C-alpha cells in the first residue's frame, strides 16, 4: 500500500507551516508520486496551504447556523482588527484569516478555529480577549 499522501502533507505543514514547492519536490523524490499529483492534492483542500501562513491561523465559520447567530459582524470585526481579509496574512506574519465552511460547532455559534482549537459563542469582547493573549 502506498504512503498516505494526505498524512505526509499534513506532517510537512505542521513542520514548515505551509507546503512549499521545495517540500513538494522532496516528497516526489522520496515517494515517487508525480509532482503534479502532489501539487493537485495540496491545492485541493482548504486546510492545506501552499503559501506561507501566519503564526496563528484563524478559520472562522460562516455556515448557516453561525450566519444566523451574527457571524458576519464577528468576521467584519476581526477583519478590521487585524486589517486583513479572508485568505490574507497580516504584515507582521502573526495572523492568517480564512472564512470557511461549517466546523461542527453549530450549537455554540458563532465559532472559529484558531490553530485548530475551537473558540465558541464568539462576541466582540471575547475576540478582544482571545487575541490579546496571543504573542
Amino acid at each position: 500500500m502506498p504512503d498516505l499522501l494526505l498524512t505526509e502533507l499534513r506532517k510537512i505543514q505542521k513542520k514548515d507551516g505551509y507546503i512549499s514547492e521545495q517540500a513538494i519536490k522532496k516528497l516526489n523524490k522520496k515517494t515517487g508520486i508525480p509532482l503534479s499529483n502532489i501539487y493537485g492534492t495540496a491545492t485541493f483542500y482548504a486546510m492545506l496551504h501552499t503559501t506561507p501562513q501566519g503564526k496563528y491561523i484563524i478559520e472562522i465559520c460562516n455556515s448557516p447556523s453561525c450566519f444566523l447567530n451574527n457571524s458576519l459582524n464577528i468576521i467584519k470585526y476581526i477583519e478590521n482588527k487585524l486589517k486583513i481579509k479572508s485568505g490574507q496574512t497580516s504584515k507582521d506574519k502573526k495572523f492568517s484569516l480564512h472564512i470557511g465552511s461549517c466546523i461542527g460547532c453549530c450549537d455554540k455559534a458563532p465559532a472559529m478555529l484558531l490553530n485548530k482549537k475551537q473558540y465558541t459563542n464568539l462576541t466582540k469582547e471575547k475576540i478582544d480577549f482571545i487575541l490579546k493573549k496571543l504573542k
Partner: protein
Amino acid sequence: MQIKKQTKGKALAKAKKLGQKATINLIKEKVLLGRGGAGFPTGTKWEMVYNEPEKEKYLICNADEGEPGTFKDKFILEKNPELVIEGIKIAMFAIGAKKAFIYLRGEYEYLENRLKKLIKKANIEIVVGAGAYICGDETAILESIEGKRGQARLKPPFPTVKGLYGKPTAINNVETLANVPLAIYYKDWNPNLRLYSLSGNVTKPGIYELPLGTKLCDLIKLGKPKNKIKAIYFGCFGGCMPHCEKTKLTPDDICGKDCIHGAGTIIAVDEKHSIVDVATNIAKFYEFESCGKCTPCREGTMRILALLENISLKNADMKDLNTLQELAEVIKETSFCGLGQTSTNHLLTALKYFRKEFEERIKEQKDRRRIR
C-alpha cells in the same frame, strides 16, 4: 440516551461467537439503517462486501461530518468513542476486513489522540481530512484516503465491489457504527431513536435523541426559540420548509415537502431573518465547496451565487427568479455527484415556499431606484 450506553467489548465477543454470517443477519434483522443521510440498510451493505470473492477488504468509518448544522458524530466521538471503535471491530470481523480507516475531518483533529489511545493494537488507521465538504461522499472519501483530490468516482462499480485501492469496501457513518454494538448486545435496542442536531435561532441548541415520527414542532419547542420560527432547513442539502404544527420527523413526511430528512440536521430560522439572505449564504457555501469536476456544479453554483447576490445587493428583475429556478433544476438533474445534485434543493424549496420574500426584495430595490 441510548447512544451513551456501553457494551464494553461484550458485543464484539458475542459477534465472534455468532460468526460472520450470523452477525450480518442479526444486523439485518434489527433493521439498522445508515445514519449518514442515505439510510441504506447496514446489514445488506456488509453482506455485499462479505460475498465478494476478493481476499483483501476494507472498512471505512466516515467521520467527515461536513454538512452544515450537523454535529451528532462529533457528539458521539466525544461522549462515547469506545462504542464506535467496538462497532468498527465488529464490522471488520463481519465483512472480513483486516484493515480499517477512520476518516476524521480536519476540523475534528483534536479528537485524534483520544481515538488513537482507544484503538491500541487494532489495525485501524486514522486519516485526518483537510477541509473538503465533498469528502463526505463515499467515493470521494476513497480518493482522499488514496491521496488524491477528493472528487467523486463514477458509480457503478460501487465501493462494495471496487472501493479503496480497488478492493471491496464498506463505508459506514459514525452513528451507524456506534449503533452496531448496541443492536447486537441489547435486546431492547430501539432502531427508531435518532440523534437530531438542532441549531440556528434557538436558545437551547444541541443534540436531541428522539424517535422517528416525533413532531418537528416538539423538537423546536425543546430548543426554546426567542422569536417565532419561520422556516426549517434540513442542513444545506436537505432544503427548507415553512415551520408548521403537523410535520413529523420521518423521511416520508419530510420528503412530501420536497426536503430530505438526511442525518437529522435541523436549522431553525426565525422571523427576523430573510430567506433571501440565508439562500445567498448557502449558495456561497456550495460555490466554495464544489470540487470542480463537472461543469453543471462548478459553473452552476457560481452563477447561482451571482444571481442571488444580485437580488440581495444590487439590481435584479422578476425574470431573474425564473432564470434562477431553471438553472437550479438543470444543476440538480445534470450534476455528477450528490453534492451538485442536492446543491440547489435549498433554493428550489425556498422559491417554492418563500417566493414572496424574493419578489419583495426585488420590488424594494426597484422602488428605491425610482426614488433616486
